């Protein structure tokens, strides 16, 4: 099976996010007064070949843990969508 995968990597709660804080501070100058809790992360997109959804999820969990995120400071969220063949 082929899957479209989006991995979102974001800083764990409690880890300082100076980029998010800087963006948040800049927004009122542009007239956006109601924005709070800004967080900056990464979005990584790719396609994956795997036998089924279960094996795809297992592989992706390992991939995120060992490479795409650093579990000391980052959480990752995986979204996968089967591609119709």
């Amino acid at each position: 099976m082929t899957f479209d995968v989006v991995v979102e990597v974001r800083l764990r709660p409690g880890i300082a996010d100076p980029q998010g804080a800087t963006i948040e501070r800049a927004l009122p100058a542009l007239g956006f007064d109601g924005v709070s809790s800004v967080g900056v992360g990464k979005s990584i997109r790719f396609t994956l070949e795997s036998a089924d959804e279960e094996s795809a999820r297992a592989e992706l969990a390992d991939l995120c843990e060992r490479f795409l995120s650093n579990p000391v400071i980052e959480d990752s969220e995986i979204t996968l969508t089967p591609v119709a063949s």
Partner: protein
Amino acid sequence: MSANVAVVRFPGTNCEFDVAEAVTALGGEPTIVFHDEVSLGSADSVVIAGGFAHGDYLRPGAIARFSPIMEAVSRFALEGGAVIGICNGFQVLCESHLLPGALQKNAGLRFKCGTARLRVESNRSALTEQCDVGDELDIPINHFEGNYTCSEETLAELRDNDRIVLRYVENPNGSVDDIAGICNEGRNVVGLMPHPERACNPLLGSNDGVPLMRSLLESALASA
């Protein structure tokens, strides 16, 4: 007998010649080892020099960790060999799990470039054996992601086991507990953000890096 120091160079490393120069000036024999090699040759110690290994893509050190030479470095470290990671090299050692924790963007989002005063907190490490606890050293820093962070448990372990080897006298980057450098359990692997190799000649404004680099050469000879 002089110490053979392997200086690891990834694509994007830019401090390997500074390290080699400092090692030579102190009587050691540096060899620059490219990242796609699989052996450290006859090295007595290893320095992972600073720079931007693999462009710091994804995260600093994240891709360098998978370079072929890192298997040899890990083996060398696990066998007790002295391995020092300077700046980007510290980031590589954390990503490789040879040291705990991680380095995140500096508090305040500023690239820090200047001289930092460090206090030697432990002289039981491959990089600080020639120092006394309490020594203050002026060493250049040059980084954007030098803000050391780790879990509460890891921090407690580092403190309880005297593994925080260097602290900033004035914290420049937000590092937890003012940490500038730490070592592993075996005390042979040390990572630090400041650049001792750039402070080995009075012409450069400070030679406070000499006792650190000399410690490395002595550790190398001891394990040779």
